[in-house]
């Protein structure tokens, strides 16, 4: 198994699309609120999750590593975990917890 890694595998922002973007041609640049916005992909090219499916801990044992970083969302007695390694591929999950619509982003 893997050595424990720091939590940080999680720097959610800055580069989430880094490797995808890095392979593309010169980005389109536009000014938005005083900052340059760089566009290289079409909306949805990195597929968000709109209908997330969930599994029990027992079923997750074969899919998740113990040291796998997760975002944990709780509300009342409900708890959901989202693999950050997996969110790298999707960046956004449109979900609910306890009937409340949420956007899980990475």
């Amino acid at each position, binding site marked *: 198994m893997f050595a424990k890694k720091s939590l940080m595998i999680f720097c959610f922002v800055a580069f989430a699309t880094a490797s995808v973007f890095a392979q593309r041609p010169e980005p389109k640049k536009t000014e938005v609120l005083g900052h340059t916005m760089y566009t290289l992909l079409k909306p949805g090219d990195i597929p968000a999750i709109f209908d997330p499916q969930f599994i029990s801990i027992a079923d997750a044992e074969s899919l998740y590593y113990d040291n796998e970083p997760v975002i944990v969302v*709780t509300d009342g007695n409900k708890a959901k975990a989202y693999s950050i390694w997996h969110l790298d591929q999707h960046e956004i999950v449109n979900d609910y917890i306890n009937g409340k619509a949420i956007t899980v982003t990475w």
Partner: protein
Amino acid sequence: MYTANVDSIRHTFQASGSLWQDALVMQDLENKTLWAQITGEAIQGDLKGKKLEMFNSFFHSTFAEFKKQYPNGVLLKKEIIGEASSHYKKYMDDSTKFGIFERADTFNKLGGKELVFGIRHDDKIVAVSKDYLIKNKSYSFKSGELTVVIDFDNESNTVIAYEKKDNKPVGVVTSYWFAWISFFSETELIH
């Protein structure tokens, strides 16, 4: 992490294909408005100026810790089996690269690739370096009349933040310092 309602109507989001200030820009499918992921603000489109409400009841941990804390919890099903590291590991491990456009290293208080835990609580913006919390385990600060506490457990790789008075959760974001400071220049940095 945000609640997905805008004017009481649920909105759904996807990656827009754009980056702004080195961070993800989301697009809602209902209005095609563009939203800055870090701040939750609509920056372009019909809903420009609107702001998503933060959903604070979340934290970062590991699968092992989640199992212990929430034996009845559920996990996002993955389509990919055997995903054993981040897709961006090479980038993460390179301390000289800041964002995909490789901005210069001008981050004088802390290395640009240092990890911080960032909190926005009312008008207060605080970032605590991971190194600080590894050494000190906890940090608290005043925000108005309230005390906000951030705790880090190095063994389980778990970070949580909460209002001390009633343990109400406070959203804490893990970020590279260069990314955080580009959005929140008025941040109080603890390191």
